[in-house]
């Protein structure tokens, strides 16, 4: 397997090799990995990579996927412009 050609997070263009490197540095929860390399922080909001990273971590720890904690989920769910949030105040 060529981990440098295997994409885990499409939005942030992160390969398996890059993710494994972060894990080897000692960041072993998804919350930490996300903060270090932006995994799951792109426009798809982790809908692809979170289903891959939990499997990678489960395999490393030799446990089931249900043991792997997921990161906090916050609004907004999709891209939104500041002027949308500001509403009419932004028009003036």
């Amino acid at each position, binding site marked *: 397997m060529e981990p440098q050609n*295997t994409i885990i997070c499409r939005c942030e263009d992160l390969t398996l090799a890059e993710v494994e490197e972060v894990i080897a540095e000692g960041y072993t929860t998804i919350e930490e990995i996300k903060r270090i390399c932006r995994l799951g922080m792109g426009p798809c909001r982790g809908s692809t990579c979170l289903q891959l990273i939990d499997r990678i971590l489960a395999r490393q720890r030799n446990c089931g996927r249900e043991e792997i*904690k997921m990161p906090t989920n916050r609004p*907004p769910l999709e891209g*939104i412009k500041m002027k949308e949030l500001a509403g009419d105040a932004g028009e003036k």
Partner: protein
Amino acid sequence: MQKCELAIVGGGPAGLAAALKAREVGLEEIYLLERDNFLGGQLVKQTHQFFGSHKQFAGIRGIDIAEKFKDKLEDRPEIKALKGAVAQGYYEDDVLGYSYRDKFFKLKPEKTILATGASEKMLSFPNNDLPGIYGAGAVQTLMNQYGIVPGEKILMIGAGNIGLIVAYQLLQAGIEVKAVIEATGRIGGYAVHASKIRRAGIPILTYHTIKEARGNEEVEAVVIQQLDEDWQTVPGTEQEMAVDTICLAVGLTPKVDLAIQANCQMAYVAELGGDVPVRDKNLQTSNPRVYIAGDSAGIEEATAAILEGELAAAGAAADILPEGSAIDRERAEIKEKLADLRRGPVGEHIRRGLTRARRNQNAGRDRYTRSWKS
């Protein structure tokens, strides 16, 4: 801030059925938010006939079911169905935020039904970002909605119903399907679909996985490999196929972001596709304001989603309307239809999964941390 009785997020089969049922049983202020610019959800790409669903929609094509719902909705202008309305968040004061026509709106519903559907699972393999690699949903969108074929020679990964149906639709569009491969030892889809593929001379290879995609600017070939019964690759069984398209149909996972934000108790249930909200028999979550219906509560199929939408709507209406209405009888009837649909060996894993996603009953593990507590 706008108030209403019921907000429904998602205009697919579950959400559409929920909106119509909610109106039918007497709710008057109903919002339906759909992120796409059309209603119907995945139904609009389902050009095949439904079957095996007893009295419910057997023999009808998904796209025609969507049309029926849309016609009914047109007769019900009281239902505010907003197309292109993107739900952005569920906040701790039970306010739903959404973007619509370049503005952000806040809605405070008495009850919310989440019917947000599912997203496709991906696989990790070398060169999995080459152009020519698609999810089965994207292939269906291209072909069945826009009339565009994705390529000329294709490998299908996954022999569940979606993989088999899309492989057959590709064949019908004149595309060469090289093979359907499946990592497990069994074909997950219905035998009817599998035999259509086999009759066309296409091999369905169980215990096979993708090793890598090959190509410079786009997919030029794929290497597949055999798996043993412990899902380990068997050396020396690599096989290269010349293809320009690889289609992934390796399962769906429920879209549960809003449920997590609404602080609903979650459970990891593999049978239902991953993390799902825990619900009671009326489809109410641990947040009493929130009901969940359809694939966003566990991967099943459209007929079940429609019935769940109706059941959730009846539940929300029963909470809001004064007692003494006929809703209880109605709910019993819908539950009977759902039980009927899930009967028999085909429904076994769904029944097992739903038991594990039942409130306070051997529920699966909640993997999420929350930004606020109820």
